């Protein structure tokens, strides 16, 4: 496409905002004044976070993939966000409830099987991101390579790192990770520049976050955040599914819980009923499977009794968050609801009681996070001015000291970027290495916290014990991701540090995946070009066949007819080549060979037309 004219936007670059959700994902951008969600190929704003691997290779993402959950359950995966940045031991509970097929050899990095291949969670998330990138490029008519991606506020370092890795694999430079509740506040704050204290309650498909912010002339300062990375709408679904499965077993005398297709159908039926219950006093769970039918009516009252303890589990983090922010519920000026699960009336009622304020619901809770991500993207690209987000780290950062005890260096709810410097020394004469074990969490003992990484200070000059002084700087950047640098305090010379992450991918692994995805993307592109060339070949071959029946064909010289026959044969030979250029070359030759024929036919047609016309 040749643009007629180009507007020079100066140094401004397109940056999109992406909400990479457990259930649905969205991409949004800033138009001249407002953030807007970009629709997908099917016109829908929400792209279901579902990926399916086709039998001929190639992946399907979104609502098409969601349909395949039923027909191709072993090649399709959903809720992959639950596995991001986690170790195999962390997800034992998850594996009981979700049909993840974890492949062998998942000790260091989890690998999920899709059909005959295996993928890491960042690779699967990258497929979703790639789809969003494609949607954005189609909508904006320009390449999109930079993004702001949202994460649950309570995501730890490994989960954040995994999200950045997913971006890199998808060919997106993740300029910034923004916490989901903070992004929502940004979306709400766009038109209102006021002072005040805002609570954001975010109950999504798989995670719960609560953040309390102070607004000050366009600055959004997070005072405290809390949450549970394993609490959300999925938990409600799973509970209803379990009850329905028991019901079905007693009605049908059969346990269908191991039938993937049946469970997926039931999951869909349960979600539909759950969603209806937000508006209707009762709803039916309807399952038709192998010519048998199951119907169960759920009243709002029964539903609320079923989920009350799940909703109550959000209240503890809310109270802790209030205490950490040092504010009382009365001081909260506004409450913002985010996430599809906040449509449930019981959730709204609980929030209202706790914060003594009627929650805001003017923005669509499914879209508000993506809209906020787009605002942040606008801040980074220079499009949005006078707004600034000051976020915090959700978890304390510490190092292991004697006796397996944690010494905290950066406390939770510290504004990021944040740093801490510690001086280390040796314990034995001539010691060359010092190993620093970094953990994240609030507990006193290392075993109760989450191991982040081990940093090996290497090549320490041999000296008597306690003599070397190595200054180590721990820095949490604005994305909530840790980096560590070290220097010799005496000489000021940089000290080499080797990082051994406890979970997640090494840089080399990510690089390899990027390469693999580029190779795959090229293969996909080539396959499409070949397919298109074959379609064109089919068209011209069919047209040539048809033309052979015409009088014009008989008027051709023997040489011309032979030329056409040769060109047809050559094209048929080239047809199965996997190089589209070879196919196209023969198409051109056949085109040339049939030039006279086409002209003759055209003339004949014009002649007939003139004959039939009364002048």
């Amino acid at each position, binding site marked *: 496409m040749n643009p007629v004219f180009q507007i020079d936007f100066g*140094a401004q*670059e397109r940056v999109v905002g992406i909400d990479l959700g457990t259930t649905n994902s969205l991409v949004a951008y800033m138009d001249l004044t407002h953030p807007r969600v970009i629709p997908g190929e099917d016109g829908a704003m929400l792209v279901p976070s579902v990926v399916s691997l086709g039998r001929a290779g190639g992946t399907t993402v979104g609502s098409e993939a969601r349909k395949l959950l039923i027909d191709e359950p072993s090649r399709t995966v959903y809720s992959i966000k639950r596995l991001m940045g986690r170790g195999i031991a962390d997800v034992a509970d998850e594996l009981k409830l979700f049909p993840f097929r974890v492949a062998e050899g998942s000790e260091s990095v989890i690998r999920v099987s899709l059909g005959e291949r295996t993928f890491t969670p960042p690779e699967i998330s990258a497929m979703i991101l790639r789809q969003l990138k494609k949607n954005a490029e189609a909508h904006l008519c320009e390449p999109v390579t930079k993004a702001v991606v949202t994460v649950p506020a309570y995501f730890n370092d490994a989960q954040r790192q995994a999200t950045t890795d997913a971006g890199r694999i998808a060919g997106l430079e993740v*300029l*910034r990770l923004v916490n989901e509740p903070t992004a929502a506040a940004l979306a709400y704050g766009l038109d209102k520049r006021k002072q005040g204290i805002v609570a954001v309650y975010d109950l999504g498909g798989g995670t719960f976050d609560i953040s309390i912010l102070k607004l*000050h*002339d366009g*600055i959004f300062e997070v005072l405290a955040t809390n949450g549970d990375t394993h609490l959300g709408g999925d938990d409600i679904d799973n509970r209803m599914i379990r009850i329905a499965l028991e019901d079905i077993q007693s009605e049908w005398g059969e346990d269908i819980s191991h039938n993937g297709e049946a469970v997926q159908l039931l999951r869909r039926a349960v979600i539909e009923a759950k969603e209806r219950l937000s508006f209707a006093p009762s709803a039916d769970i309807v399952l038709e499977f192998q010519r048998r039918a199951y119907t169960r009516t759920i009243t709002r009252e029964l539903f609320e009794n079923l989920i009350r303890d799940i909703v109550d589990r959000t209240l503890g983090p809310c109270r802790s968050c209030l205490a950490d922010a040092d504010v009382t519920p009365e001081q909260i000026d506004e409450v913002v609801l985010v996430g599809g699960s906040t449509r449930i009336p019981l959730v709204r009622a609980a929030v209202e009681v706790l914060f003594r304020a009627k929650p805001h619901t003017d923005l669509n809770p499914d879209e508000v996070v993506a809209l906020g991500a787009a605002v*942040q993207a606008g*801040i*980074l*690209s*220079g499009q949005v001015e006078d707004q*600034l*987000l*000051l976020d915090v780290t959700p978890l304390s950062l510490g190092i292991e000291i004697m006796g397996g005890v944690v010494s905290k260096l950066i406390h939770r709810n*510290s*504004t*990021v*970027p*944040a*740093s*801490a410097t510690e001086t280390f020394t040796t314990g034995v004469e001539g010691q060359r290495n010092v190993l620093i074990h970094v953990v994240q969490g609030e507990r006193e003992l290392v075993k109760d916290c989450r191991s982040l990484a081990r940093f090996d200070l290497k090549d320490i000059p041999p000296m008597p014990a306690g003599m070397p002084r190595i200054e180590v700087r721990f*820095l949490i*950047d*604005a994305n909530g991701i840790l980096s560590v640098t070290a220097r010799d305090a005496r000489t000021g010379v940089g000290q080499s540090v080797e990082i051994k992450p406890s979970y997640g991918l090494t840089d080399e692994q990510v690089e390899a995946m990027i390469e693999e995805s580029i190779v795959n993307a090229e293969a996909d592109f080539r396959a499409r070009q070949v397919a298109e060339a074959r379609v064109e070949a089919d068209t011209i071959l069919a047209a040539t066949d048809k033309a052979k029946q015409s009088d014009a064909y008989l008027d051709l010289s023997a040489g011309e007819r032979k030329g056409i026959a040769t060109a047809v044969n050559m094209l048929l030979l080239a047809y199965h080549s996997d190089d589209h250029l070879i196919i196209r070359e023969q198409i051109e030759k056949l085109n040339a060979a049939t030039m006279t024929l086409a002209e003759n036919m055209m003339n004949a047609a014009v002649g007939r037309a003139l004959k039939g016309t009364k002048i």
Partner: protein
Amino acid sequence: MSGCWNCGAPPAFTGRDTGEEAHFCAGCGSLQPPPSNYFDFFGLERKLGVDAGALDLRFYALSRRLHPDLFFRRGERERQYSLDSTAILNDAYRTLKDPVKRAEYLLKENGFDVGEQKSANVPPELLEEVFELNMALEESAKEEVAAALSKFRSMLGESDAEMARQFERYDRSFDRGVLVEIRGLLNRRKYIRNLIETANGTR
């Protein structure tokens, strides 16, 4: 301090109260490497009395000029300075807005050792109280524990008031001897806090 890394212009300001612009070169406007001292960073005198409201406003103003979000389209060097500056800004704000952390920081900057104080060293004047609290806790005597708690709370209040007086004394004289007294007060305060937590059952 040497000149600007970018244009070589001499530093326009000398580190005292000059606002956010002190962090930028007066010649070419590029961001300079941050001063490491928290008071210098905020353009404050190295005093123990800090106006909390003014500190808040300065924090917001500095954030608006230094935050990494605003440096995405600049060169790598300025991006790094922005990250370093903002990390120090946030660390400094956390430290300076809290009187206890502020005093500990100033002590440390003056060469005092305020590392992990062992709370095992009971300040002698508190020995009797500690003994009574332990007795009360052992006997689960609720009333006595509550009485001890309110006593500790008022001691904490007195201790804070005394600390404020010493802060003023230091700011007038910059006398090292006052810092020695403040260190004693900080230890005592820490100990009382521990006692409150013990009595509360939160320890």
